[in-house]
């Protein structure tokens, strides 16, 4: 009789603790502490990912789960608008790429994030459908000298920038589907043997030598009937593959003809948006985990394997931007998200916030509408669950600050008569505030501040709510000293990290009141420009404890709005999951993976009591206890 080692190549072990590395796949062990046999199980699941910046469906998609590219699309969230936006995903968030030269939707794509091919699609012109193709180098789209042989939209494809396939699609009039199948050799397009079933909006992916075409719409303009037929192409000829379980179109695809994946789209018996995912082994499609939310018109190709894919955007209508990642892995991946935290007793904006997600401090602030209005003295302490009253400030102010819950410092701020710039500072010891030495340059509640009570930093701000400052001051636990000024005057920005490795995001640098995409580094003596943010922010909240880890959230970004979040990993910015309730002039503290967003203003709800807690993405081994039942 065979034993486990002969079958799996691994002996059953006795361990005091569970293993934590992915090499444990297939391992069975006896956990002597728990008194149980355990193993690592392969799981298949979708988890939420950062939403795309510009909501839309029918964008062209290509690349991998950790280096994905989408371009163009159709946004129906207000009135139908064809997009030219390109977005790039790095496994954590989306950033803007180079715009397409023409607004286009329903195009096909192939290749990688830095070497992509884009072909066909619908445009605002007449005729709407085009045959043009473009190449992308990671920043710029360039038209190829030669176009496809047949202009069409809702065409899909796969391959590389120099060896690609374009399959099916829709003609201009009468909106009928086609059997056209074309090959790109890096220079020109040529017709291949037509596919057997005319279809557009199909789910197709793979390299030229292992390409699959699954499902699709066969009716006029993309409606029913949907086919369940699969065709495979091996670089030479077409063959019939196994039928998909849920006939559909307009979904996503990943992998190739030996290991494929399709997901979402529209179809099924009720002709509705579907969440179904199916995995292919070269002959049979098997049902896998459903998407959490509808994804219609998500293109094909965001994933070169059937174990790691991304689905981004949704045609709707209305169009939305949520994204999800699919992982078939021995790890359980839990997506980052904001959750509601305990409510403040006193709702307010322009408040100071320091500390951590489980030991936070909120002080001062402003109230516009709800009585009592005006600048505040209240201090509240957070324990990760609820807020309780702390010692009140000696005088009302809307202010920033730095430090921790039991050792905090205020930084000037707006004082009476509102909005007068203040220079007073106070220190908190966990119980009460005492007066500290004054700032050299007074500021309203628009300065940035970071650091600890013994080594703090204040930068910029305003002598009035309309007059920016460049002053920078360091605090040594007792007094303030003026140091190297900001490169230019700035307010409404935010800082994280220690005094000698501080990092600042966004703000306002010039009229009219617009948000900047700047980031700045301060090393204790010199200011240097950091990477450009995905989108500008001002009056936002931040968290992070170094100059290589920052989360910026809320505020007044014109696009995509007050609930938006972006993260910085020391190299660049990417989008992150959105707040539940948009807000500006809020407080923020904690780390980039355990943040706290406090109060704020979401006009006409000015004096928010709500808080939110951010938890970053986690990945742990999928360990299961073995039982005999």
């Amino acid at each position, binding site marked *: 009789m065979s034993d486990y080692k002969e079958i799996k190549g691994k002996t059953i072990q006795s361990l005091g603790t569970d293993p934590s590395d992915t090499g444990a796949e297939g391992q069975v062990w006896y956990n002597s502490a728990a008194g149980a046999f355990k193993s690592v199980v392969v799981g298949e699941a979708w988890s939420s990912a950062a939403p795309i910046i510009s909501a839309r469906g029918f964008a062209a998609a290509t690349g991998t789960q950790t280096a994905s590219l989408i371009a163009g699309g159709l946004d129906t969230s207000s009135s139908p608008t064809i997009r030219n936006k390109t977005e790039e995903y790095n496994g954590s968030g989306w950033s803007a790429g180079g715009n397409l030269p023409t607004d286009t939707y329903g195009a096909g794509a192939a290749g990688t994030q830095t070497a992509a091919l884009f072909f066909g699609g619908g445009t605002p012109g007449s005729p709407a459908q085009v045959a043009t193709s473009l190449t992308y180098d990671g920043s710029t789209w360039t038209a190829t000298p030669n176009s496809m042989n047949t202009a069409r939209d809702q065409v899909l494809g796969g391959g590389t920038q120099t060896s690609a396939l374009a399959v099916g699609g829709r003609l201009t009039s009468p909106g009928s589907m086609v059997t056209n199948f074309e090959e790109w050799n890096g220079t020109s397009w040529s017709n291949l043997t037509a596919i057997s079933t005319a279809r557009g909006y199909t789910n197709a992916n793979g390299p030229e030598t292992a390409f699959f075409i699954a499902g699709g719409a066969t009716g006029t303009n993309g409606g029913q009937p949907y086919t369940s037929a699969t065709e495979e192409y091996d670089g030479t000829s077409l063959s019939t593959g196994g039928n998909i379980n849920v006939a559909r179109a307009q979904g996503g695809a990943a992998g190739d003809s030996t290991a494929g994946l399709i997901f979402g789209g529209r179809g099924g018996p009720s002709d509705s948006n579907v969440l179904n995912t199916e995995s292919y082994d070269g002959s049979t499609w098997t049902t896998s985990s459903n998407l959490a939310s*509808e994804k219609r018109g998500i293109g094909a190709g965001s994933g070169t394997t059937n174990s790691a894919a991304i689905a981004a955007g949704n045609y*709707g209508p209305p169009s939305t931007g949520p994204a999800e990642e699919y992982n078939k892995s021995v790890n359980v991946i839990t997506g980052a998200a904001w*959750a509601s935290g305990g*409510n403040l007793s006193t709702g307010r904006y322009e408040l100071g916030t320091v500390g951590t997600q489980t030991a936070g401090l909120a002080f001062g602030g402003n109230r516009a509408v709800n009585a009592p209005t005006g600048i505040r003295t209240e201090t509240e302490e957070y324990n990760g669950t609820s807020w309780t009253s702390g010692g009140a400030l000696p005088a009302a102010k809307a202010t920033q600050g730095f430090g921790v819950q039991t050792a905090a410092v205020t930084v000037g701020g707006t004082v009476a008569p509102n909005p007068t710039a203040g220079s007073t500072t106070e220190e908190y010891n966990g119980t009460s505030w005492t007066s500290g030495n004054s700032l050299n340059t007074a500021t309203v509640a628009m300065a940035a501040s970071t650091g600890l009570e013994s080594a703090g930093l204040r930068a910029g701000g305003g002598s*009035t709510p309309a007059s920016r400052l460049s002053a920078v001051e360091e605090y040594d636990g007792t007094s303030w000293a003026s140091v190297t000024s900001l490169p230019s005057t700035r307010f409404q920005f935010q800082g994280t990290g220690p005094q000698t490795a501080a990092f600042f995001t966004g703000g306002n640098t010039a009229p009219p009141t617009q948000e900047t995409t700047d980031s700045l580094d301060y090393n204790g003596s010199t200011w240097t420009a950091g990477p450009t943010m995905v989108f500008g922010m001002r009056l936002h909240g931040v968290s992070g404890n170094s100059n290589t880890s920052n989360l910026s959230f809320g505020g007044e970004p014109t696009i995509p709005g007050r*609930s938006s979040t972006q993260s910085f990993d020391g190299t660049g910015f990417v989008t992150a999951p959105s707040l*539940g*309730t948009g807000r500006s002039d809020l407080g923020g503290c904690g780390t980039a993976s355990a943040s706290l967003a406090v109060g704020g203003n979401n006009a*006409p709800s000015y004096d928010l009591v709500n808080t939110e807690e951010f938890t970053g993405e986690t990945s742990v081994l999928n360990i299961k206890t073995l039982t005999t039942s």
Partner: protein
Amino acid sequence: MALFIYGTATNTGKGFFTAEDRRAFFLRGYPANVWVIGNNEKGALWLAEKNGVEKTKSEAQTLVTAEVDAAKAAWDANNVEGETAEQKVQRLGPKPTDITLP
């Protein structure tokens, strides 16, 4: 099938919506305790479990617009003698603007 459910529910603080909820369905809060919720089973269950009241999109929009209009009126009525328009914006922030639900 409609993309969203609309409803009203009071944010009671910790646990009102969890990270798991946010991963399971779209959720965004608006004035007047209006919530726009992804239209799936978990989204619908969440609204019911929070003692929420489902609204039509039109009803939800009316609630939001009423709060915006009230805030605009309050903003217009909040004046300090001798204050310029610019100073008023500095003191109160910009006048609230219309909000359109998705």
